[in-house]
């Protein structure tokens, strides 16, 4: 590389700089040793950070889990009151539901539900309650429309059965 006068001067200045800096240069072995020491230090530091994080997060997770598990079950006031008010009307209006629907409402023991199911039910409660209330409603004058032949009309005849037999069936006994 052919250097001009200006470039030669710059190079000279840089040489001066270089010779000054070389005196400050640390020993290679020392740099390597301190690099290794720094690595060990940073590893230890990161390990202790991880441990501290685990120690702080674990109690929080445990407390949340305990809160979910020990959460008191929702009072079933609405369901209970509805069930308490319906037996009579159901007994009266069961024929109106028809035999198939009547069969679908036998006393089934309530299933045990976990916290997740309870949560899901809680979220859909208002809508479910509204729907149930709507379907359970019966006109107060519905009983006036009842006639003695209703049972006969609502029961399904079977082959080979006599009229007397059919008549004796009540919807609840059907099937």
């Amino acid at each position, binding site marked *: 590389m052919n250097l001009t006068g200006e470039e030669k001067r710059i*190079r000279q200045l840089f040489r001066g*700089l270089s010779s000054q800096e070389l005196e*400050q240069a640390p020993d290679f072995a020392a740099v390597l040793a*301190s690099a290794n020491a720094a690595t060990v230090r940073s590893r230890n530091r990161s390990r202790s950070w991880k441990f501290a994080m685990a120690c702080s997060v674990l109690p929080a997770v445990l407390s949340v889990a305990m809160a979910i598990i020990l959460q008191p079950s929702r009072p079933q006031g609405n369901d209970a009151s509805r069930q308490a008010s319906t037996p009579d009307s159901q007994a009266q209006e069961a024929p109106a539901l028809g035999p198939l629907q009547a069969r679908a409402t036998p006393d089934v023991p309530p299933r045990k539900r976990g916290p997740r199911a309870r949560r899901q039910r809680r979220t859909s409660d208002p809508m479910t309650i509204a729907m149930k209330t709507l379907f359970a409603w019966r006109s107060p004058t519905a009983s006036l429309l009842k006639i003695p032949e209703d049972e006969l009309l609502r029961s399904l005849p079977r082959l080979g059965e006599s009229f007397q037999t059919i008549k004796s069936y009540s919807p609840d006994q059907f099937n």
Partner: protein
Amino acid sequence: MESAELKALLERHHASTFGWAMSCCRRDPLEAEEVLQITYLKVLEGKARFNGSASFKTWLFAVIRKTASDQRRKNLLRALLTLKVVERWTGKDLDEPPDESAYRSEIQSLFRRALARLPNRQREALELVFYHELNIQEAAAVMAVSIGSARTHYERGKKRLRQLLEESEALYESDWRRKENPATIPGVE
């Protein structure tokens, strides 16, 4: 490449890599040493791999440059977080090296100051060519720019450095004259 071989290569280039690290760290020896430590670890642990596409020195210089840049960013973030940067901005001139009094000659001191006032790319191009005696192509590889771009930085750097040196020398001379003979300067008693 094996670890022992890498170590030998690193040791061979140690002096010049320290000079380059100093350049990347604005002549701060402590920061330069820290950057060197990180670079050596990167190389020895295989986080930075030499693939042989350039010379080992060129590749190592590029790694140092990248490491110094990352380190500067980290330090800036740390300073911002601890609000130390406010002290730095209000305290002293950033361009002024910390060990100004240690410089041997005034000319060298002026040269350092002029160098510190150059834009980064221009300073890097000049240092790689004049300090580390790389050619423009190698300098371009270290700086991660095209050869044309490196050449432009080099030429502009030379021009700017000349201007800065002339300004500094003029200031130095007038200052010297004022000290020697105050009566020669108009307006000075």
